[in-house]
């Protein structure tokens, strides 16, 4: 057989030895249940973390007397609730196997890239931004409250500098994450455009 010609290579490809991976129906059912459990635990972990944050800031609302600190806490709780809602919506959009059969490879590939792109574009908006107002008001309220304490005047400058340095560091991290995500999203958009061009040719 001529292994070098395209037809010969097709034969080489089809005649390659394969180890038949026997996958029984019981194994598939077990794997399916395991997969569902993994998703359930992942969701539970995310929700548990949210409950912990809400509990902590809920306690602060009750604990701190300063109105601005309490307002900041309430905004953080609202931000976390928004995040939980977004997570729930995102989780519900998980691809189900039937969709893989109803869509051509081109459509499916495009959807996958689009989903990743939107996720990258949105992370900053729905994962970080909702916490910014609450954290800013909370920290600023905490600063004012600290300065009002009897021992504060001796440390005023140090407290203010620490507060601003923390705020700037947080801001830089947020902006950095946002820029990186935008860069990755643009890269995916180029792939989507290439698929679109191929689809138009079809």
């Amino acid at each position, binding site marked *: *057989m001529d292994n070098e010609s395209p037809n010969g290579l097709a034969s080489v490809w089809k005649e390659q030895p394969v180890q038949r991976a026997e996958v029984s129906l019981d194994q*598939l059912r077990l794997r399916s249940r395991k997969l569902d459990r993994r998703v359930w635990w992942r969701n539970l972990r995310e929700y548990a973390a949210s409950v912990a944050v809400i509990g902590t800031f809920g306690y602060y609302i009750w604990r701190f007397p300063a109105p601005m600190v309490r307002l900041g806490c309430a905004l953080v709780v609202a931000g976390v609730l928004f995040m939980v809602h977004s997570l729930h919506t995102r989780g519900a959009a998980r691809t189900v196997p039937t969709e893989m059969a109803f*869509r051509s490879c081109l459509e499916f590939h495009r959807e996958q890239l689009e989903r990743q792109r939107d996720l990258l574009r949105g992370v900053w908006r729905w994962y970080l931004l909702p916490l910014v107002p609450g954290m800013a008001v909370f920290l600023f309220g905490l600063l004012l409250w600290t300065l009002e304490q009897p021992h504060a005047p001796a440390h005023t400058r140090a407290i203010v500098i620490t507060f601003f340095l923390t705020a700037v560091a947080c801001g830089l991290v947020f902006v950095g994450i946002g820029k990186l995500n935008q860069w990755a999203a643009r890269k995916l958009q180029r792939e989507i455009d290439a698929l679109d061009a191929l689809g138009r040719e079809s």
Partner: protein
Amino acid sequence: METESNPAGTSRQDELYEEAASAFGPPLERLARGYEADPTRRRDLLQEVHLALWQSLASFDGRCSLRTWVYRVAHNVATSHMIRDRRFNARTLVGLDEVDPPSTEQDGERLVDQHLALEKLVRLIHQLAPVDRQVILSYLEGLDAVSIAEITGISPGNVATKIHRIKNVLARRFHDGGRHGQ
């Protein structure tokens, strides 16, 4: 969703899966090889394909042939696997026109050994972007342009053009023993 069981205790979904696994078991293994080089990850990918196939067959309504259904699910699972894979993002995948011949110590020699030819072919496939990979793998499985078009979503004319390019690339890369461009 078809979930009715027959007297033997298997549902229509189970029967369809067994039929598909029996008919397309070896092609699915070869398909997994075309997407994943690492044997352990390839085994995982193959199991993922089988699981998705079984789950999807609960909704099989005959709108396309079982073969098209199986290949669509398999390619789409494998493409998702590629997208998820971090290495995919770190490595540039190319189209058929840009693919480089894998550099091997055997370059320049005639590839009379099937094993070497296969290894070289697999390395070439692993350089390809998903769409070209779907077409070349389907072509190697002996599918015609119309069937490939139905699976991939590219027009039959476009598939035919791609197959023509594939043949050229294969003939050039393998007949020249990798001395393309000389």
